[in-house]
């Protein structure tokens, strides 16, 4: 589409600088809800980058802004040095192919009226070998070749997430955003999908932005993490450091609140709550 967009901007050292960069991002919704209050972060190319926060933390708003699906009230979002926050839809073609999202809801993220092959090829635009690409993608996410002819309702939650991942990979993106992509899944299915994501990120050398309310999952998937609360980043660092030596009270609270098997087995969890 916009051929100029594909060439790197002059002020950026392509390949070295952050692939996605956010500066002083604010987003206020109608009615005065401050979803984001000045967020800045850099996602280095090839990094597995985690964003942790509970509901109301602004992480979903941030995802939309990273993907230019919404406009900030203030601040900038750049992709390889190019502003994407102030562009019209028609100027975003380059981003649409290079940054893709896997959404949370395995039911709501697939159009029930479309066959799987049409869903997967939706981001492809005009391609010569659509069927070949769909078959390739189905194989990559571990779905049988005949899945393409089916409608999404025939698939389980985990399989739908595989379809969602195949769609995201279709245009051969460089950045993959997983927005709570495993939150609605059972533990065993979650494990499979996490393994699949890990494998694909390695195989295609993707930059992964993994968004979750679950610090445990982020720890498993990511190298670097930001912790968000009420529209702000409260902590940022290498994931093990943040997990093992949290500096912010809220991070500590998050870690303590998440029940873990090890904690429970050590007997430190809460079989006996404090007396009132």
């Amino acid at each position, binding site marked *: *589409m916009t051929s100029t967009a594909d060439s790197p901007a002059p002020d950026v050292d392509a390949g070295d600088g952050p692939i996605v960069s956010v500066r002083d991002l604010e987003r206020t919704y109608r009615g005065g809800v401050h979803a984001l209050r000045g967020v800045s972060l850099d996602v280095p190319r090839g990094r597995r980058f985690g964003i942790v926060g509970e509901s109301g933390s602004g992480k979903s708003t941030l995802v*939309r802004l990273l*993907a230019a*699906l919404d406009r900030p009230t203030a601040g900038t979002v750049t992709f390889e040095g190019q502003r994407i926050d102030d562009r019209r*839809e028609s100027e*975003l*073609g380059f981003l*649409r*192919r290079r*940054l*893709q*999202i896997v*959404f*949370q*809801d395995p039911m*709501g*993220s*697939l*159009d*029930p*009226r*479309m066959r799987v092959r049409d*869903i997967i090829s*939706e*981001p*492809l*635009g005009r391609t010569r070998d659509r069927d070949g690409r769909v078959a390739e993608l189905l194989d990559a996410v571990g779905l049988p070749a005949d899945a393409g002819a089916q*409608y999404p*309702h025939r698939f389980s939650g985990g399989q739908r997430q595989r379809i*969602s991942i195949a*769609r*995201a990979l*279709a*245009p051969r993106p460089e950045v993959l955003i997983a927005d709570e992509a495993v939150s609605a899944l059972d533990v065993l299915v979650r494990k499979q999908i996490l393994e699949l994501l890990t494998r694909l990120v390695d195989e295609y050398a993707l930059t992964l932005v993994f968004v979750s309310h679950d610090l445990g999952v982020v720890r498993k998937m990511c190298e670097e993490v930001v912790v968000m609360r009420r529209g702000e980043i409260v902590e940022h660092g290498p994931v093990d450091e943040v997990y093992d030596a949290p500096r912010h009270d809220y991070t500590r609270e998050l870690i303590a609140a998440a029940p873990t098997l090890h904690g429970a087995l050590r007997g430190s969890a809460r079989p006996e709550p404090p007396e009132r």
Partner: protein
Amino acid sequence: MRGNLVVGAALVGLVVVTALVSLLWTPLDPQAVDASVRLLGPTPEHLLGTDKFGRDVFSQLMVGAQTTLYVGIIAVGLAAAVGVPLGVLAAMGPRWLGELVMRTSDLVLAFPALLLAIMLAAVYGASTLTAMIAIGVATVPAFARVARAGTLQVLSREYTLAARAGGRSRWWIAWRHVLPNISGMVVVQASVSFAMAVLAEAALSFLGFGTAPPTPSWGRMLQESQELLAVDARLALVPGLAIAAVVLGFNLLGDGLRDRFDPRLEARR
């Protein structure tokens, strides 16, 4: 579920076939007045008897099916063709446009359809066409509302976000995601509106603002039979049952089609 579709299609099909046949052939001239055979009961010559002018009721019924279908198809077609795009636009376009569409449709809803029909009839003369246009215009808001609500629902789904993230335009989303997903609601609305249009035409004909005599219409047959109800209920019963059958038929067809075209319900069939 399949039963609905079959019965609905059969009833509607019967009306359609009747209307088509009546274009070429009716047992007798439906408009032929014959004072010597007034108010006859069913006879081999007059299968459903005759009315107070001695016209053949069966032939009138057949030709009346044409009027019913005209009214339904034109009125509902007009309402859907205008209402659905307006509703989708109201949901997907800029906010001011949505407001404008919805406030205007409030206005139309508040304006009595009957008054509109009477005004049109006063200007252009009472005819089936003015009745259809009046009914159609009055039904536009129903489609606009259904389409807007459905569109907003579809837009709240993540697959439309995914489509945008995949670089697809608003038009693509409206065409590939919104329309297929609201089609069920629109079809149901159409069947309900069709039934209402048939009834409205009957009411307008009753008041003298609809189909002008001598063109046979089920609504007018019903109206003409009013004064004779005590004498011969048959004259009211025949068009009444015909109207009930076509209304039921379209309702069943609407339900059946909705189920048929919804892949999510496939498992239950």
